[in-house]
């Protein structure tokens, strides 16, 4: 098109082409039938994708609302103690999973000085890869779980709230507080379709040096995934089974096939 034609005629807004098979979207949540302009993804979808990624990134860099959580969890009647791992910031946490599995010195000292009596179950809450998930779902799940465990007759250790924690910091904490079973609630790695998903990991007789095949996992705890009430029911089944068998891990099969027992978080 020459310069005069360009200046005189309004350009057609776009060569946006939709796909005729949009009806197939009913069968999958995958990003299909996006349409195209030229060979490229149209602006609407381009921005939707970016927003989903933004939510995931914000979740990775989110912080535990320590004060709110402490206030909220105090409602269970259990003492709540705040500790940190040896990863002192998020970028270190992301690059050094080994440090996220260890308690920093003052935190270890603090837990040791509690001199608390070994209980049946110790609850540990950690930010993991999505503090947002924990900020949202720990205040819902923990009171329900504490109540259910109390009714079932289990004694409970103080709640430990961990910043920059990985799943295996359970073993460092367990080595000091000596609960028979530790349950860690932790933020899972955010995906584009879920940035606020919480996981629960069960470890029988936690102590330093255990490996992940000694744990059981319940993942995708969130409203649109495994809702809190269902999660607590499943956790209670796992807890009862762990005490019956006196173990957790691959030998404790979750016979309910609606849940996952993947151990994706390192």
């Amino acid at each position: 098109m020459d310069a005069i034609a360009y200046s005189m005629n309004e350009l057609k807004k776009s060569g946006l082409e939709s796909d005729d098979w949009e009806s197939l979207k009913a069968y999958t949540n995958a990003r299909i039938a996006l349409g195209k302009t030229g060979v490229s993804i149209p602006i609407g979808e381009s921005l939707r994708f970016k927003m989903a990624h933004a939510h995931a990134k914000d979740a990775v860099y989110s912080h535990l609302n320590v004060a709110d959580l402490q206030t909220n969890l105090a409602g269970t009647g259990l003492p709540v103690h705040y500790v940190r791992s040896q990863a002192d910031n998020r970028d270190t946490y992301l690059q050094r999973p080994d440090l996220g599995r260890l308690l920093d010195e003052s935190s270890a000292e603090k837990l040791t000085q509690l001199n608390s009596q070994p209980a049946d179950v110790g609850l540990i809450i950690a930010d993991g890869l999505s503090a947002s998930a924990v900020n949202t779902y720990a205040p819902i799940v923990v009171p329900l779980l504490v109540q259910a465990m109390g009714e079932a007759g289990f004694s409970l250790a103080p709640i430990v709230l961990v910043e920059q924690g990985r799943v295996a910091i359970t073993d460092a904490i367990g080595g000091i507080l000596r609960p028979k079973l530790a349950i860690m609630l932790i933020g899972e790695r955010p995906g584009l379709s879920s940035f606020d998903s919480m996981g629960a990991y069960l470890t029988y007789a936690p102590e330093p040096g255990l490996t992940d095949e000694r744990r059981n996992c319940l993942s995708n705890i969130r409203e649109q995934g495994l809702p809190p009430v269902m999660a607590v029911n499943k956790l209670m089944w796992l807890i009862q089974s762990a005490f019956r068998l006196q173990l957790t891990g691959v030998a404790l099969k979750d016979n309910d096939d609606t849940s996952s027992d993947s151990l994706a978080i390192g």
Partner: protein
Amino acid sequence: MAYQCTVSAFTYRFNDLKELLAKASPLRSGDTLAGLTAESYEERVAAQMCLADLPLATFLNEALIPYELDDVTRLIIDTHDKIAFAPISHFTVGDLRDWLLSDEADTVTLQQLAPGLTPEMVAAVSKLMRNQDLILVARKCEVVTRFRNTVGLQGHLSVRLQPNHPVDDLKGIAASMIDGLLYGSGDATIGINPATDSPAATARLLHMINEIRERFEIPTQSCVLSHVTTTLQLIEQQVPVDLVFQSIAGTEKANASFGVTLPLLQEAYEAGLSLRRGTLGENLMYFETGQGSALSSGANHNVDQQTCEVRAYAVARHYKPFLVNSVVGFIGPEYLFDGKQIIRAGLEDHFCGKLLGLPMGMDICYTNHAQADQDDMDTLLTLLGVAGISFIMGVPGADDIMLNYQSTSFHDALYLRRVLGLRPAPEFEAWLLRQGIMDNQGNRLSTTAQQQFYAALLPV
């Protein structure tokens, strides 16, 4: 044996070959996690200078992981082609870098040299090369493989259509497959990562793809990326297995953590061949690799992650694979922290694989906890396109809803084909034209034939 290099008045000492290689490696988080990185920028360049002066033949005499301890080392040493190596046997690593960039190193010469190169030599030279060097040399390599179509011809870009679904729902997977095929993807393979490794579920998926492929006479090959033991079982049950998939790594111990041994891979390769399903050729193994896998299974023997990765390519090439791809950003930020590290690793893996004679593709990807985004993937995608990559992944909208990571989309593949003038595998392109899906400029058509195609596939 120790190696040393003096810079100004200070002499850097490297206790052995693996320390020298690790310290000469461009920085990445996985080597820091392993405690192997150079302690300063100066030490890194000093190591590179020392490495540049190292005779290539050293790698034939000093094993990074002892011969007695590791079957990958044994495979490398026992299959090394001394005749192919002879013309460069007097080179240092630095000489090799300069020669690879010279005009004497043309496509045919590089193909003849490949069996004379060990992974350690190739890893070493890559550490001395800038990104543009890795691109320029890789572009000269041509590795062509055949099963039902031809992958790797210069000027062509193939795509693995990856229609994953969180619970392996057949209709959900079929919907993504149709979307991909209508966007011109699927010539490398239609390859599904199953949500479970159950043989029955895997068989269902294989039958489903096979039926669609036969009905529409699509010149491509299918794959369900289950463990090789599952695939072996399915081959025995006469399930239509085209490509045999397995994840592999660069040490015996790391392979053990994947549940594989070299004899098991040989058994799977022979079982695949016994089906005689390839019409144009007999390349049928599909391997995936990725930097960091050896360390993550505690099996790196203090060898840097990039060298471990290239050792995996020695495993791969033994079985004449149809496809090999590095899943470069999938492993996470503790191994490759950000876009810069992922891009560098991607270019290294592609170069090293191609130089060793492998049909290299790449899953250009990242997870949400890595410091990377789709812009970084665009950069790596474009660089690898220029470098002549054989194939990439095609995931609907680049968002894998089963594996929860981001890769490249069907649109991304069309972008790369358009900006670089690349074409699909020839047999597949002919099919796209015949079906009225695309014209010979790579433009998508909207024709009745095409409508009939997806209407016929609509789940009922």
